[in-house]
């Protein structure tokens, strides 16, 4: 159950030709999550700055 499923790192990336599909989905998910976190934090920072300027 916890055995590494591939013989080498290269094989894990290639995944018998399916690697391109699997890893592109991984990258898509990570990038979209990260961009949302960064986006919201930037928006909040901007609002806070506005408060401080108006006070």
């Amino acid at each position, binding site marked *: 159950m916890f055995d590494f499923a591939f013989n080498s790192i290269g094989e894990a990336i290639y995944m018998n030709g399916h690697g391109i599909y699997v890893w592109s989905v991984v990258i898509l998910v990570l990038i979209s999550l990260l961009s949302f976190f960064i986006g*919201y934090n930037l928006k909040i920072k901007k609002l806070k700055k506005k408060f401080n300027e108006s006070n």
Partner: protein
Amino acid sequence: MFQVERAYKFILYSSLIIYIVSLIWGLLFTQEDFVQGNSYRIIYLHVPASFLSQSLYISMAVASFVYIVWRVKLAAYLVISIAPIGALTTFIALTSGSIWGIPTWGTWWQWDARITSTLILFIMYLGLISLHSSFSNYEKADKLLSWLAIVGAINIPIIKKSVDWWSTLHQSASITLTDKPSIDPSMLYPLIGSMIGFFGIIISLVIISSKYQIFLREKNKSWIKEYV
């Protein structure tokens, strides 16, 4: 507010760890599927996103209901805070499904009931977001948005049941509440882990997007000034 901040950090970090560990487990430490080979590993990214895209809509509809009946302002903030995150998860579900479809089905798109109803869900999220931003009066926008969110909730049981009601290319659910899962335990555990982890990550996203919404809408209140 400080407690919320601490809860947010706790949820975010613990769910990030759970998600990443389950992904590594699922992507590298499970055996390949006997039919699909390695492409099945997309399940660890696709299923959590699809599941959340529907549950986020349900929570949005519930918040809309609370807003319409009791006029709780916080519920209206929640509705518009959830919408972009719901759009994100639906987008992930659609694209990951499309990419999965290329090696397994032989096509990246089919007008099949499950896929089409999920596309409708995505369009609905986008429609709700753009509708809300087109109003200059927040209260009017909130009212219209919550009504539409409730009407659109009919799409959720349709998505859920589409694989049973119509002949679809999409397979039926592997994990159900009523039956034994039709997925081997060695593949199921990392899948459950990735679902829990992704759920936590999305909850923390909802927390910061609601925080933004509260800041934006209550900026003239004195308590906000104290907090900032």
